[in-house]
C-alpha cells in the first residue's frame, strides 16, 4: 500500500516548510522512524522520520522547494503491500528493484481485516431470541426467519419485521432466487403496473383474507399444478340417496347429501392409489397411512377447510355425521386448531354453487384436491348405443405434479368414477 508523506508541522505556528535535503532517493528502502528527509523552517531545521517502513517510490517536493504543511512531499510503498501502479517513469524504468524484506513485517491479507470487524450478524444468536409473537406470525405466514434482517435491539427480529416480510411475500423471495440463478434473467416476473387513477374503495385486508391470500400464493408457487377431469354417471347413486335421505335425517339428525358418498369413494380410491394421499417434502415423498379429508367450506366470505379425521375408517353414515358436525362447528365459529390441521387430501363441493367445472388450488401441500361439480341431467350415450337421460357430475382433480404424474392421477380419477358409478344401494350406508 502506498503512503503519501506530507510536509510535517514543525511547531504550532509554522505553516510551511522547505525541503533542505533528501536523505534517501527513489528506490531506497527506509525503516519506520528512520530519518529520510531534512526540512527547514523559519524556526527550526529537522530531520523527519519515516512514518512507515517501505520503499520510496516517488519524490514530489524537490530540494529547495517550499510547500505548505500537509502538502505531499513523497510516496512510500509499504512493506508487505501490493505494489502500487508505477507512479513515475523512474519506477517504470526498473529502478524499483529491491524487494521488500519479506520477514520484516507480518503480512495481513485484507480479508482478515474485514473479518475482524465483528459486524457480521450472528444469525443463530438472533434466531434463538425470537419472541412468541414472532414465532407464531412466522408460522402463520410461512416466513423463513433466517432470511429476515431484524430491526429491533441487537438485530432482534420483531413482529413487524415478520409482517413486513410476509407482505413482500414469497414472490419477492422466489424472484430473488431466480434472479440469482444464472439461467434466465427475465424470469423474475415484473410486478403489475400500479393501477391507473381509477377511483374505487380499498377494503382493508382481514386477518383471514391475508392468510387465505398467503396460502393460495404459496401453493400456486410451490406446487406445479396439473389438472384433469372425468364425467361420472351418478344416476343410481342419486336414486339411492333419494331413497334413504328421509330415514337418514330422522335416524341421524343430519341431512344425507352427496358429500359423504363422495368422500367414501375418495378414501377408497386413495387406498388404491396411496401416492395421491401424500405430500412432497425436501426429504422425499411422504405417503400418509391415514386419510384425513378436508372439506372446503365458505364461511362469512372466507374459505376454511375443516378436516374429517380418519375418514378412511368411517362408513358413509359415519362420514355424514362427522362432516355434519364439523361443518356445524365451523358455522358456529367453534372450530379448534385440530379441526383445521392435519388434512391429507381435500374435497371441494363446488357443485353446490352451480359450477360444472373448476380448477381448484391444492390445499396445504397435499398431493391433490378433487371437486364435486353440479349434478345435471344430460342426454348420454349408454350401452347399446342408446341415448338416455342420466344424472351426470363432473369430477375435477388438481394434482401436485412433483408427487404424481398424469398416469397415476388419471388412474385415481377413473377409479373414483367407477366407485361412484357402482354405488347403487347394494352396499350399506
Amino acid at each position: 500500500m502506498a503512503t503519501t508523506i506530507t510536509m510535517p508541522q514543525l511547531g504550532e505556528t509554522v505553516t510551511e516548510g522547505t525541503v533542505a535535503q533528501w536523505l534517501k532517493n527513489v528506490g531506497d528502502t527506509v525503516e519506520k522512524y528512520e530519518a529520510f528527509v531534512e526540512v527547514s523552517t523559519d524556526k527550526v531545521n529537522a530531520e523527519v522520520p519515516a512514518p512507515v517502513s517501505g520503499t520510496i517510490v516517488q519524490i514530489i517536493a524537490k530540494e529547495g522547494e517550499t510547500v505548505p504543511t500537509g502538502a505531499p512531499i513523497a510516496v512510500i510503498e509499504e512493506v508487505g503491500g501490493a505494489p502500487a501502479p508505477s507512479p513515475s517513469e523512474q519506477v517504470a524504468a526498473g529502478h524499483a528493484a529491491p524487494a521488500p524484506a519479506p520477514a520484516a513485517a507480518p503480512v495481513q491479507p485484507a480479508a482478515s481485516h474485514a473479518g475482524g470487524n465483528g459486524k457480521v450478524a450472528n444469525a443463530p444468536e438472533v434466531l434463538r431470541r425470537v419472541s412468541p409473537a414472532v414465532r407464531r406470525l412466522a408460522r402463520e405466514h410461512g416466513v423463513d426467519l433466517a432470511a429476515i434482517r431484524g430491526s429491533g435491539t441487537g438485530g432482534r427480529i420483531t413482529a413487524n419485521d415478520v409482517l413486513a416480510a410476509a407482505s413482500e411475500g414469497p414472490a419477492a423471495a422466489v424472484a430473488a432466487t431466480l434472479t440469482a440463478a444464472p439461467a434466465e434473467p427475465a424470469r423474475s416476473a415484473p410486478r403489475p403496473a400500479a393501477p391507473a387513477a381509477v377511483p374505487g374503495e380499498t377494503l382493508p385486508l382481514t386477518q383471514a383474507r391475508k392468510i387465505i391470500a398467503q396460502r393460495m400464493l404459496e401453493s400456486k408457487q410451490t406446487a406445479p399444478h396439473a389438472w384433469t377431469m372425468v364425467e361420472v354417471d351418478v344416476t343410481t347413486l342419486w336414486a339411492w340417496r333419494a331413497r334413504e335421505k328421509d330415514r337418514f335425517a330422522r335416524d341421524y339428525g343430519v341431512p344425507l347429501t352427496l358429500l359423504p358418498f363422495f368422500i367414501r369413494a375418495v378414501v377408497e380410491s386413495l387406498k388404491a392409489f396411496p401416492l395421491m394421499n401424500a405430500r412432497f417434502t425436501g426429504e422425499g415423498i411422504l405417503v400418509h397411512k391415514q386419510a384425513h379429508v378436508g372439506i372446503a367450506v365458505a364461511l362469512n366470505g372466507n374459505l376454511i377447510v375443516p378436516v374429517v379425521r380418519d375418514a378412511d375408517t368411517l362408513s358413509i353414515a359415519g362420514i355424514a355425521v362427522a362432516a355434519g358436525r364439523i361443518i356445524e362447528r365451523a358455522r358456529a365459529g367453534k372450530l379448534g386448531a385440530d379441526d383445521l390441521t392435519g388434512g391429507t387430501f381435500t374435497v371441494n363441493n363446488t357443485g353446490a354453487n352451480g359450477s360444472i367445472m373448476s380448477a381448484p388450488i391444492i390445499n396445504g401441500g397435499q398431493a391433490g384436491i378433487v371437486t364435486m361439480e353440479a349434478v345435471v341431467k344430460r342426454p348420454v350415450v349408454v350401452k347399446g348405443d342408446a341415448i338416455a337421460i342420466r344424472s351426470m357430475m363432473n369430477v375435477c382433480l388438481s394434482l401436485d405434479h412433483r408427487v404424481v404424474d398424469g398416469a397415476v392421477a388419471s388412474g385415481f380419477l377413473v377409479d373414483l368414477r367407477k366407485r361412484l358409478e357402482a354405488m347403487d344401494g347394494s352396499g350399506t350406508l
Partner: protein
Amino acid sequence: MAVSAPTKTMNNVEAVRETLHDALVRDERTLIMGEDVGARGNVFLITKGFLEEFGPKRIIDTPLAEASIVGVAVGMAMEGLRPIAEIQFADFIYPAFNQIVGEAAKTRYRSNGDYTCPLVIRTPYGGGVRGALSHSVSIEALFYHVPGLKILAPSTPADIKGLLTAAIEDPDPVLFLEHKKTYRSVKGEVPEGYYTIPIGKADVKKQGSQLTVVSYGYNLHQALDAATRLEDEGLSVEVIDLRSIRPMDRTTILESLRKTRKLLIIHEDNKFGGIGAEISAMVVEEAFFDLDAPIRRLCGPDVPAMGYAQPLEEEFMISTDAMAQAMRDLVAF
C-alpha cells in the same frame, strides 16, 4: 355516561365532594363516618359543611379506631343502610383489615346471599406529597388477593364521580382509593347530574399502536405526559387507565396488547406481588403468542416505606423521564 351533558371543570377533591353530596341528597340511607369527617370537614376539606347540612346522624365523627369504623359500618350495611366509611389515610387501614377481609368481603358468601354488605370504604393513598412513612402508602395489593372485595382507583374527576356513584350503589363492599397527589393537581371536565361508570371497565386514555401501557392513579397522568411527549419522537404509545383494579378488565388489556404486542405496567405500589404481577401473569396465560417483547414493570422499590427526605421520596416515586425511557426501550426492542 351521557356524553352530551353539560360539564363543569373541577379537581379530584371537588369531584369526590360533589359525588358524596349528591349521594347524601339522593338517598337518605347513605351516611358518612370517619375521623374528622364532621366538625373538621375532613382533612382535605372534602366534607366541609356536610355536618351542618345533613346532621350528626348522617355525618359521624368517630374515635381514632379504624376497626370500629369499618366494623360498625359493616353492621349498618348488613341492616340496610349505605355507609361510606372513611379511613383518613390508607396508612391507617391495617387495624380494619379483619373487618374488611374477614367480615365485609365474606358477608354475601357466608350468609348464602341472605345478607349483602353495600359498604364503601374511601381512603386517600399514595405518596409524592412529602407525607413520609405514615401518609404515603399504597395498599391495593394487600387487598387485591381477596375475593368478594372490589377495589377502584380512578384518577380523573369524571371517572371519580362515575365510579364513586357506582360504588355507593354497589350491593357489595368496595374499597375506593383516591391518590392524594392528584387531589388538587388533576383537573378535568365533569358531566353535571347523575351518571355511573360500570365497575370493572378500564379506559383507553390515549390510543397508540406500538406499545400498551397500563397504569392508574398519579402514575397514569405521568404516563400520559410521557406518551404524549414521545409522539414528537414518532412513537405511538397506547395508555390504558385501569381505574378498576379488581375486577380487572382483561378484555381491554388483551385487545390492546394483541394490537401492540408489547406491554409496560406502571404502578407506584412496590413491584413484588403487586398489581403488575397479576396483569403480567394474566397476559402470559391469555396472549403468550401475541407477545413480541418481555413484559416490563415499572414500580415502586421494595423498601418498607417512602422516606420523608426529598431524595428518598424522589427515589421511590417513578419519574416521568424514567417512564419515557422505558417506553422508548420497549418500542425499540
